[in-house]
């Protein structure tokens, strides 16, 4: 991923603010899985994992891991009160039927229309879509957490994705190590910046036009 744990945690903490009491939320692999650690103040939030868990809790303490209780990334989790286990067809039944209020995913590219590309890098190893197509297409809200730019410093937020799409016009919010950007009918709106980045730096590292909200949130 290339980002330090502090920066990854800051992105996850900001994403956790998007979650309201009572929501059913699916967390993707990588930075999104850290969001589960920032939900102390939420009531009745149920975290779903597509490998067959509804009601994930915090990460277990070292030594208390259960090898048969892991999230979709293969890392040990705990469960909260009211949790349940089920097979993969039920897991995706919940997703396709529209019970997931929010999915928080990683991305390779996002377009100003909210198109999501996160499953193929041409000329490199093809990871496959996993469960991302169902989640992107069927969750009520799609939030993307990612690095603002690639390892080579190229923008990942652009007018049109150049990589094969996972799903069209599905992303509603992008949170990166530099900014918080909403995808709206009027295009991308910059609503927050991650200190110490400036609005100018964010505009410069984004390959799509950004409208700037009057009152910008600064996240430390």
């Amino acid at each position, binding site marked *: 991923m290339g980002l330090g744990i502090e920066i990854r945690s800051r992105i996850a903490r900001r994403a956790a603010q998007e979650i309201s009491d009572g929501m059913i939320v699916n967390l993707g692999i990588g930075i999104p899985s850290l969001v589960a650690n920032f939900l102390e103040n939420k009531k009745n939030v149920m975290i779903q994992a597509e490998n067959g868990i509804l009601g994930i809790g915090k990460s277990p303490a070292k030594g208390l891991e259960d090898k048969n209780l892991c999230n979709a990334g*293969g890392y040990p989790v705990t469960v909260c009160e009211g949790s349940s286990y089920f097979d*993969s067809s039920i897991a995706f039944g919940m*997703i396709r039927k529209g019970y997931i209020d929010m999915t928080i995913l990683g991305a390779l590219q996002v377009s100003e229309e909210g198109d999501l590309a996160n499953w193929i890098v041409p000329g490199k190893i093809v990871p496959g879509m996993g469960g991302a*197509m169902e989640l992107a297409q069927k969750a009520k809200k799609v939030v993307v957490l990612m690095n603002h730019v690639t390892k080579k410093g190229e923008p990942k937020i652009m007018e049109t994705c150049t990589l094969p799409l996972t799903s069209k016009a599905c992303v509603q919010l992008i949170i990166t190590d530099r900014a918080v950007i909403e995808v709206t009918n009027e295009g991308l709106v910059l609503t927050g910046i991650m200190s110490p980045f400036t609005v100018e730096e964010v505009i410069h590292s984004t390959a799509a036009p950004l409208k700037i909200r009057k009152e910008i949130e600064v996240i430390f």
Partner: protein
Amino acid sequence: MGQKVKKIEEVLDVIKSGSTIMIGGFGGIGNPPTLIQAILERGIRDLTIICNDTGFPAIGVGKLITNGRVKKVIVSHIGSNPIAGRLMEEGKLEVEFSPQGTLAERIRAGGVGLGGVLTDVGIDNEIVQKGKKIVEADGRKYLLETALTADTAIIFGKESDHFGNLIYDKSARNMNPLMAMAADYTIAEVESIVPDGSLDAESIITPGVFVQAVIKTDGVNWKWVWE
């Protein structure tokens, strides 16, 4: 009740080189370690594997890929196994991707005697919809996703009785109950074999009718990514 509990040597003849096998598990969790090890030791090869993913290089089903025993995989994801990605690039491993929920339903369809399922997942995605029939039902468009079946399924459970009634353990359930139904011959590797009548009939996830053989696991012989 049928006596399905077997020694591993008795069941391995069922798995032939060149055959299609379903392997339960998700990121290695719920893969049957003892059966995978036995396939490696027997030299079984040219397999077509239907699995959620290709595990990690030294974990679960990933070991079969790493050891060059697999010619084709039908999966949703290979990202956690760079060796699978490299073999795919080199043209040594054929990879067919299905969106994960679609893969689960294709297996379930095969397991319950259906020819396929209709889904709109990936319908506007040129890679996913390529070569698939579009069917209109009740005024909406769907992709026709065909059912998957296999010669053998090797799955992992927590407990079995002698009839093959199965319960699973937490997130190690994943694709296992679906695959148990979808193969001509299903071998369940379980943590414990319990006396008939001791499983609560209300809690059984896979009825034993779908299971042809049960073996006791020797346990996982790999280190998990988090260890």
